[in-house]
């Protein structure tokens, strides 16, 4: 098991290396740089801008910049953000946690919805319950998330005013207090719920199909032949097997949420990684852009690893030595 994990980490190294080169080259290929924004400021002195560029090494060929960057990056130093004037890791840290919390809460909501609905729909397939749930999941499938989120924001954030309409925490509460935690959660609910209500639909469908597939399996018949009551046939046999692929997707799901937070964070002005990424792209804050992409890439790799570990933990047939 540990060997397996270690090996996977070793395999990640070349992947990350390749990723970093691609990311770096792409970042450099974007027109303009962090100082371009100053070029429409008539008071800025072009010669001075050139001097700063030279100082920051922005005029060097990309591979020199890359080597410089990479040698620092392996030591955990992703450089200084030009727009934020502070080490990239500091900039990312707060945002990262916000995004991770958002992803986690979204995940919880997603499963809270998907599991009961998927079970109902799979167990009583082709009944009106199933049809309702399936109908919902089809509509979710066809609804662009941002429209839905905007509507949620306007209904619950403004019209009903149940939830805050932006930010990650109320500025009046103090860190470390209970009120702070409550406020954080309060800010998470609306974006998380909006994502979950849409994102859950695929999980529901998946679970439903799994259950329908599993309930005609031979071992279920065996269980029935033992006289296991129907409810236990479900809880002990069908559901456990149906959850397998979903559990295995957990890792991917988390990273998917982190990588895909861009839209929801933009709509809910939620200061997370996605939003930071977008603004860093438009401000050409390369150090931040590369760091975020590298981190999400790494997270994805971790997610796949996590998925594999979870799968091997829940499925005895897949054993990781």
């Amino acid at each position: 098991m540990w060997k397996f994990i270690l090996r996977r980490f070793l395999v990640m190294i070349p992947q990350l290396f390749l990723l970093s080169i691609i990311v770096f080259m792409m970042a450099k290929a974007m027109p303009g740089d962090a100082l371009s924004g100053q070029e429409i400021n008539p008071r800025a002195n072009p010669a001075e801008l050139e001097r700063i560029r030279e100082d920051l090494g922005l005029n060097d060929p990309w591979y020199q910049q890359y080597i410089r960057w990479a040698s620092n990056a392996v030591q955990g130093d992703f450089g200084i953000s030009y727009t934020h004037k502070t080490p990239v890791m500091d900039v990312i840290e707060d945002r990262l946690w916000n995004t991770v919390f958002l992803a986690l809460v979204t995940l919880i909501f997603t499963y809270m919805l998907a599991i009961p609905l998927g079970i109902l729909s799979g167990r009583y397939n082709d009944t009106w319950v199933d049809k309702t749930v399936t109908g919902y999941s089809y509509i979710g499938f066809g609804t662009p998330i941002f429209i839905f989120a905007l509507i949620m924001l306007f209904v619950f954030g403004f019209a009903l005013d149940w939830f805050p309409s932006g930010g990650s925490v109320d500025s009046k509460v103090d860190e470390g207090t209970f009120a702070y935690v409550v406020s954080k959660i309060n800010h998470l609910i609306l974006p998380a719920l909006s994502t979950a209500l849409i994102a859950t639909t695929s999980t529901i469908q998946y679970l439903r199909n799994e259950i329908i597939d599993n309930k005609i399996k031979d071992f279920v018949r065996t269980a029935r032949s033992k006289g296991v009551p129907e409810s236990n046939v479900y809880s002990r046999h069908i559901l456990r097997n149906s959850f397998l692929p979903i559990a295995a997707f957990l890792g991917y799901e988390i990273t998917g949420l982190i990588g895909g937070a861009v839209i929801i964070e933009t709509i809910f002005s939620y200061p997370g990684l996605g939003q930071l990424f977008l603004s860093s792209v438009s401000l050409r804050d390369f150090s931040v852009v590369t760091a975020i992409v590298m981190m999400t890439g790494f997270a994805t790799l971790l997610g796949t690893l996590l998925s594999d570990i979870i799968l091997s933990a829940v499925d005895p047939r897949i054993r990781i030595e």
Partner: protein
Amino acid sequence: ACSNDTEKSSTKEKKGKDVEQVDTSLFPTKTTNQGEPIDGGHLTYGLVSDTPFEGILNKVFYQGDPDNQVITFFDEDLLDTDENYVFTNDGAASYEISDDNKTVTLTIKDNVNWQDGKPVTGADLEYAYLVLGSKDYKGVRYDEQMALIEGMEEYHAGKADSISGIKVDGKKITFTFKKANPSVTTGLWTYPLHKEYLSDVPIAKLESSDKIRKNPIGYGPFKVKKIVQGEAVEFEAFEGYHRGAPKLDSVTLKVVNPSVAVKSLENGDIDVASISADQFDQAKALDNVEILGKVDLAYTYIGFKFGHYDEKKAENVMDNPKFEDKRLRQAMAYAINNEEVGEKMYKGLRFPANSVITPNFKYNNKDVKPYEYDPEKAKKLLDEAGYVDTNKDGLREDPDGKEFKINFASMSGGDIAEPLTNYYIQQWQEVGLDVQMLDGRLHEFNSFYDLLKKDNEEVDIYQAAWGVASDPDPSGLWSRSAAFNYTRWVNDKNDELLAKGISEEAFDDQYRIDTYNEWQELIHEEVPIIPTLFRYTTTGVNKRVSGYDYLAERQYKWFNVGVTEEAK
């Protein structure tokens, strides 16, 4: 993330003169609420931005405008400006200019103290210069005017440890310039750094230090109490403020997304927030909010590409003959209807520009009229210039009978950008000019300026905007050597007038006004660019707020602002 200096402006002086297009009465600039501010009042300021603020809370270092909006609550410049944006002696310091116009002396008032109780001294301002000129300084605020201070260039080059042209004596500080420049009365850097507080941090580390980012100390009306990084700031009144205790007890600043700013105003979640054109109609309809407006220090224009920038000689070279004929340029100016663009697209928040100096400046030449929409005249000019449709495809060929295609580059951003661009193209096509959008799409900000800066040959004409500084001198954008002169237009007369505008004689205001009037006439006649639109900026203020003045610098004079009732 640009033009920090565009905010300073004034419109008053236009009153007496011809203001037929510029109706400043379109919007009030002050809150109408005359009520007595309540004690312990609290105000929520909406910082309208689609990204969090970066949190570099110092004018020397900050980069994006959101940070600047935060700074103005707790810090300020030493010199105030009048409606003509010229320095006055009403602020935290007074100033004097020597007879030879080369020396400026600032005297900081006695009651001006940092929020930790320490007095603000000349050494603090000197320290700001020492930081700005230092080679460890990575910001962009070291400008040409600073370089005019004696000894500054030496210091900047690392050849000197101090700046010989700056002398400090307690609360007094003197700047000596190598040559007299009228811009000194408008453009001098007067923002001090708390030397005692900050000097133990190396200059290279200042911008990332907690002293700037988390616990900034200013001498403005409010103290920073708490910062939620990027999202919100809690301020409390600074009782020792030099103009007297502020009328509010506390202020919350929080970032609101542009798309929900109006909604938040309506809800009363925030009291003050700027309003963009696309939400103007919605904001106007709110009855708990009044809308203040002013003319912005910026203009939009359509530029023609005349050549390229020669980096080695640091000079613009006019070597592209495509738009040589000024009748062609004039025709293109006549062909577009900016009146309608301002009215319809921008809901009256923009109006045709007559010049490249904004109308809230006294230097704006009111006698110059915008090119009015006149397609017939445009066609006539084109016919005269030889651009006629020889192959009857509905589009004009150039005088040699060859196809004449014009690539139009335009920048993305905001909903209106694309239809506006299309609209211009349509109108040019109506007079027979084959104008196409470059690459078929709008270009994102960075890409766009990359195209301009590198004089991409594909670009024939482009639409852009300049925010203008409080200093009226247009050399930075128009001179033969200016790298920002993206049209690469050079003209001897232009060079001569620009030099006159910052000569010693220009300390005489009327001389300067006359010079710039003449310059504007030149630009109008030559049309190296077509100035298209001036703009209003508007802000929504809850009706419970009193004492808020949206004009110019006073937009940020928060000490005077109060609320007359509790928030709902």
